[in-house]
């Protein structure tokens, strides 16, 4: 106020009076007898309802102004409370206006008693609460939605106040912990959700307590077990975060957790299975190594007595060579058999020497060079048989160089060896098969009957008996090598027309 002296203010007439305040208060006033008949009502309420005082003062009861549902509530609740307590606050009731409109209100009431303590009057204060009541219904709807959502989700959710006392538990949290929300509410979360380390069962701080302490989200705690109310134990994954109000003040915490017992069991069995598989691989490798070593040692040790047998047989042959034809024939067979045995031992040794563990060479190997090396080694038999060896331009591959050369040598060697009537024509081809190269070695040889097409890859399986030279180990060695380098080998053949051997190898990247 500018310029008004205290004196001038004091001289202004006071506009407020008890009567005016009653009539035009910013709330409705209404008084009834104990029976409920309206005996006094203020202007404000009359204006809200559209009535004149005379409409209501002729015996109308307050309940008559209420909706039917409100009337039942008034008679079964409100009136009883008022009679016993003399005081009722904040009851939500709808009043019907003269024109049928509904006025949502909040009502307080007091009962006036006379000197003997007998009730004489009920006084009501009525607040227009249209907006507030609407908010409240919206709030209840929102709360119900939240409740429905929280009870539908598959994770346990527990909320606490800022002291860590439980204020809410959803159905899943009840199920996992064995606690009922009603029993848990108000208790410290540390007391309800007992969390322990999975390994030594030591109690650990609840993530909510932690989150409240540091004011930050506490992430997944690994290897936590939850001991339920009934003693049941489950493994849980959990995380907690503080809840803040709009001012950023921490008002509580929320814990979200789920049962991972099943997942943990699966992980555990998986790890066990892996360990077991690893162990078996180790054992297998060891036994393979032993076997290779055994084969090498055995064949090596067999060679010297064998060599003795051959020498003594030759000695016999020389000594009795000019003797009876029958004796000469016997020593001949003896020497041939011993030599054959020597070849078999050599073959066994070669097979056993394929000890590569299949580790991929660090640099790609040029297949052209290895093919050339193989052809070089076979030069004399190629010339002798007038064989023609052609080939595609070959790629670089991930397979040990010596072994690759060995494969080519075996396949081309076989093609020459088992030739048909014509001079051998041999072609080494290659095709792209995605991650692999598909090599082929096609010939015009005698071909292989279908029933033998698998057998030939087994050690010492020979199709032609002993009438042609050969140890019967070559294809077995090829198979062993190809498979060690993650490839496959097979044959397609037609008797009398020729065979094509195929094998695959990993591509160089």
């Amino acid at each position, binding site marked *: 106020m500018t310029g008004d002296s205290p004196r001038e203010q004091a001289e202004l007439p006071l506009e407020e009076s008890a009567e005016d305040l009653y009539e035009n208060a910013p709330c409705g006033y209404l008084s009834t007898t104990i029976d409920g008949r309206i005996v006094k009502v203020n202007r404000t309420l009359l204006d809200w309802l559209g009535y004149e005082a005379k409409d209501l003062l002729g015996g109308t*009861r307050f309940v008559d102004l209420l909706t039917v549902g409100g009337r*039942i509530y008034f008679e079964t*609740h409100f009136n009883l409370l008022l009679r016993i*307590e003399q005081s009722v606050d904040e009851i939500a009731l709808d009043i019907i206006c003269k024109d049928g409109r509904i006025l949502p209100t909040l009502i307080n009431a007091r009962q006036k008693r006379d000197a003997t303590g007998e009730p004489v009057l009920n006084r009501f204060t009525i607040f227009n609460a249209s907006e507030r009541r609407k908010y409240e219904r919206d709030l209840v709807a929102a709360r119900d939605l939240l409740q429905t959502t929280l009870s539908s989700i598959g994770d346990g959710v527990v909320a606490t106040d800022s002291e860590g006392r439980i204020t809410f538990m959803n159905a899943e949290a009840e199920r996992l912990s064995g606690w009922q929300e009603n029993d848990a509410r108000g208790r410290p979360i540390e007391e309800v959700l007992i969390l322990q380390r999975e390994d030594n069962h030591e109690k650990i701080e609840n993530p909510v307590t932690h989150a409240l302490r540091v004011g930050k989200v506490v992430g997944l705690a690994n290897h936590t077990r939850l001991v339920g109310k009934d003693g049941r134990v489950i493994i849980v994954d959990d995380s907690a975060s503080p809840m803040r109000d709009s001012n950023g003040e921490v008002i509580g915490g929320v814990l979200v957790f789920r049962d991972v017992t099943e997942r943990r069991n699966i992980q555990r069995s998986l790890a066990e299975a892996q360990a077991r598989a690893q162990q078996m691989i180790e054992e297998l490798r060891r036994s393979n190594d032993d076997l290779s070593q055994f084969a090498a040692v055995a064949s090596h040790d067999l060679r010297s007595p064998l060599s003795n047998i051959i020498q003594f047989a030759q000695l016999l042959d020389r000594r009795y060579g000019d003797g009876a034809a029958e004796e000469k024939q016997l020593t001949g067979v003896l020497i041939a058999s011993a030599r054959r045995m020597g070849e078999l031992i050599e073959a066994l040794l070669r097979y056993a020497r394929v000890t590569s563990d299949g580790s991929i060479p660090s640099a790609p190997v040029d297949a052209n060079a290895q093919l050339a090396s193989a052809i070089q080694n076979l030069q004399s038999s190629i010339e002798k048989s007038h064989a023609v060896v052609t080939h595609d331009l070959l790629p670089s591959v991930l397979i040990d160089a010596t072994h690759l050369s060995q494969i080519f040598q075996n396949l081309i060697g076989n093609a020459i060896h088992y030739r048909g009537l014509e001079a051998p024509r041999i072609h080494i081809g290659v095709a792209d098969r995605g991650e692999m190269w598909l090599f082929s070695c096609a010939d015009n040889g005698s071909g292989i009957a279908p029933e033998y097409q698998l057998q030939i890859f087994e050690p010492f399986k020979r199709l032609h008996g002993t009438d042609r030279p050969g140890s019967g180990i070559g294809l077995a060695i090829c198979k062993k090598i190809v498979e060690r380098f993650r490839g496959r080998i097979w044959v397609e053949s037609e008797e009398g027309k020729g065979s094509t051997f195929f094998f695959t190898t990993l591509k160089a990247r």
Partner: protein
Amino acid sequence: MSVIQRHNINIVGNGSKTMVLAHGFGCDQIMWRFLTPEFEKDYRIVLFDYVGAGKSDLSAYNREKYATLHGYADDVLEIIDQTCDSPVIFVGHSVSSMIGVLAAIRKPGAFENLILVGPSPCYINDGDYIGGFNRADIDGLLQTLADNHLGWSKAMAPIIMKNEDRPELTAELAESFCRTDPEIAKQFARVTFLSDNRADLATLTVPSLILQCSQDSIAPDEVGDYVHHHVAQSTFVKMKAVGHCPHLSAPAETVQSIKRYLSAL
């Protein structure tokens, strides 16, 4: 949990005869507080809360059992069986008057008389029958209950009124006074106001007193008349008391009406 604990049974007064006081929908045994002093000299008085009301054991609530008034009638018979050796005078208010009727039909020997305060066998209008309400009105009641259960959590009792000027009521009492679990209240409201027990009235053989209030918006005069005309051996008293709870609004007239009836027997 014994019946005594389940129903928070309190027994007061002295007398050779027992009077069982059964509260109605919306409150608990405290509603009888102005009546008990008038009868405790001459009667042994059994007070109880229905399951879900007052200080009863909420965990004993069972939606299936209490889906009809028969579930409540079973409890009344059990209470009488546990607390009384001889036939009782059963005083039932509002819905409890019908609960008492059902119990007395089931086991007439347990009852000497029924005092029916504001009885209604059916609250819903049906053809010529005037019950006073229709289905939509009951939905309105359920909404009003919901509006006034705002913020009541499942477990917390509503503390509707403060207790400042009633020091004689202990804080503990105030806390439990007329408290009803919101979900239970909702179902009790449905069972109370949607039941139709008109057909049962004719099978009642226990003598009864009907106390009909003036201007009772819950159980109007037509309904009281209906009960009187369909129940044999019934005495009808129209009271001056206005409203639905004469034992609270006019305890003296209520006591007098009951005493007059009982002494005339």
